[in-house]
């Protein structure tokens, strides 16, 4: 009797051990960790990113998943707090054992979690526009960078309005490095910086700043303001009748200030975006419709929501090209020929193998007096060339560093 039981058990065990790996391959989901701010100062701009990822996941799962495996999302709310990013990044990589992480809004949060991704040799997508320069094999960036946003925007503004420029920027790595880019481009184009002011995050009163700007008499103001507190600037500048054209790489496309403030406080704001919901192409319209079908209360679909949506598809493309493998070396190898592309709602996006950044269609969004948006100019297929030009080549070496115009690779 006992013997019979044991032998039955061993047969079962043998059967299971054969079935095990096969079943795992067919049914085991691909896990995507999602760390985004769903509460706190940045929530307004980032809840849409989570929704973008959920929309893409639903579409992919309905169509059979990635290489036959469904996507499972592991979502944590990072509360606009850098230490939460570190905590949850460890958690998704160690405990939840996700295949890839989509994480981060502010550059401070990205720099907080990046060493942890390096430590566990994971793969993270940063789906946000930023100040550029991250040369790290463990990171893929789908957001736009300064050579895509500023080298288009600043010369346009200088030609249209004049050569005297005033920058107000959020006082942390994003604002400081972006302001450095603006300074360099203004200088290259023969202009003058008549003023520059860095505003601590969380400042909401701008009366004196507005007067400093009026005193310096610029032709236009570059606003690189981040977070909901700082966006009070527009209302206050509008009510003080500052009436200067503005240029930005973050506003409108990220915080949809033109929807939140009463016209005409954002009149003559120019922003270079790789996506906003007003873009009038059939692909964009279809995307907006799908988005609203799943999230009817979404206040605005910003460029980071589109980046996040596209990132899921780019990752799908990578895994399928790698024959279903999610190992870092295998998925990175698919980037090598520079042909890893996806037809996103904005247009074609391709990942550059040297920098692991993404090429974009850049739209110049101009806010009218009634806060409607027009697109006076579009630049197709702008490549993230700067890192490659200064010597970052992730196909050869991985410095895991962030370069800026004043901090270049040493070779």
């Amino acid at each position, binding site marked *: 009797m006992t013997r019979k039981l044991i032998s039955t058990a061993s047969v079962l065990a043998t059967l299971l051990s054969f079935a095990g790996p096969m079943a795992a391959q067919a049914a085991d989901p691909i896990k995507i960790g999602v760390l985004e701010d769903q509460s706190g100062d940045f929530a307004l701009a980032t809840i849409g990113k989570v929704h973008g990822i959920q929309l893409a996941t639903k579409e992919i799962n309905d169509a059979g998943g990635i290489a036959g495996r469904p996507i499972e999302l592991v979502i944590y709310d990072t509360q606009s707090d850098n230490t939460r990013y570190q905590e949850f990044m460890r958690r998704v990589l160690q405990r939840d054992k996700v295949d890839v992480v989509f994480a981060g809004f502010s550059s401070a949060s990205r720099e907080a979690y990046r060493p942890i991704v390096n430590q566990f040799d994971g793969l993270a997508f940063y789906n946000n526009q930023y100040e550029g320069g991250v040369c790290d094999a463990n990171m893929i960036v789908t957001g736009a960078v300064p050579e895509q946003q500023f080298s288009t925007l600043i010369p346009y503004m200088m030609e249209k309005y004049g050569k005297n420029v005033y920058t107000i920027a959020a006082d942390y790595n994003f604002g400081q490095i972006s302001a450095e880019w603006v300074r360099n481009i203004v200088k290259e184009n023969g202009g003058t910086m008549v003023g520059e002011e860095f505003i601590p995050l969380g400042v909401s009163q701008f009366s004196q700043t507005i007067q400093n700007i009026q005193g310096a008499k610029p032709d236009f103001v570059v606003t690189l303001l981040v977070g909901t507190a700082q966006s009070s600037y527009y209302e206050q500048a509008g009510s003080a009748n500052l009436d200067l054209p503005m240029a930005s790489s973050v506003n409108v496309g990220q915080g949809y200030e033109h929807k939140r403030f009463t016209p005409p406080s954002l009149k003559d704001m120019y922003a270079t975006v790789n996506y906003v919901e007003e873009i009038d192409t059939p692909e964009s319209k279809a995307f907006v419709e799908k988005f609203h079908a799943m999230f009817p*209360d979404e*206040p605005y679909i910003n460029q980071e929501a589109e980046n996040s949506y596209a990132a899921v598809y780019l990752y799908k493309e990578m895994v399928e090209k790698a024959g279903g493998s999610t190992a870092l070396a295998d998925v990175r190898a698919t980037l090598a020929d520079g042909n890893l592309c996806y037809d996103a709602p904005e247009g074609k996006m391709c990942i550059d193998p040297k920098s692991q950044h993404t090429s974009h269609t850049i739209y110049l969004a101009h806010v009218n007096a009634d806060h409607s948006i027009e697109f006076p100019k579009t630049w197709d297929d702008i490549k993230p060339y700067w890192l490659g030009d200064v010597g970052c080549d992730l196909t050869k070496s991985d410095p895991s560093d962030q370069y800026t115009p004043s901090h270049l690779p040493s070779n």
Partner: protein
Amino acid sequence: MEFLYSLFSFFYQFGDAFAFLVLSACGLAVIFGMMGVINLAHGEFILCGAYVSTSATHMGVPLPIAIALGSLAAGIAGMIVEVVVIRPLYKRPLDTIVATWGISMIVTQGTLIVLGTTMAGSGTPFGSFSVGDYSYSIYRIVLMVMALVTLAALWLMFTKTRFGILARATIQVPHVAEALGVNTNLIYSLTFGLGAALAGLAGGLYAPTMTLVPTMGAAFMVEAFVTVVVGGADIFLGTAPAAVVLGFIKASLTSWQGQLAGQIGMLIAVIIVIRILPRGISGKILKERA
């Protein structure tokens, strides 16, 4: 002429900083300065005032009435909080920190979940005027006037009305006030409600000029606490002079070196003041008088 323009500009900026400090701090001066409750939910009473007044404006209520409604709503919310949460915690200031911090987080996140990430603003009224090369918002002059009106109204209330005298008596020596037939529980509720209503007033007044988001109260917190700590327990001898000193430092440094310098300068001034005057400006004045 150029000099006069600059002088006006400086006074405008000083008035603006002063108004922001006074209006953010008044409610806290009552609740923290007078009653000794370290109210970390101060920003959420401001949020309440801002959201209620803006919703009322969207419904077509004229702005002054909308602001009064916002203040009233915050005051009622304050009285409810006092009865339900704060009452057992008088004389336990450290416990009030935890309790009010909890309220603050519940309200911020609750607002985010129920009302969403943002509320459309109502727009700043009255337009602008120019002096020399500079243009100014008229509404900010209204804010400066309102700061002075609030201080005057509070002074009248605490010195000339029966409620004011009972409130001061209750807070100074509660058991004697009680023995003399004062309903101290009611006085505590009303005083806490008054503090919350003042916070709501600040919210309502600043709502047209700011981004309306669930975390907006946080923007007032540093200025409010700093002003009350520098001022000490008395609103008129403390909060008002503290706002003058800090407003002056902030406005001069911000015009000279920008926002960062203004923030740093203000906080350094606070460190110096509490090092020299541990009980704040009013503590110093009252001690010398005694």
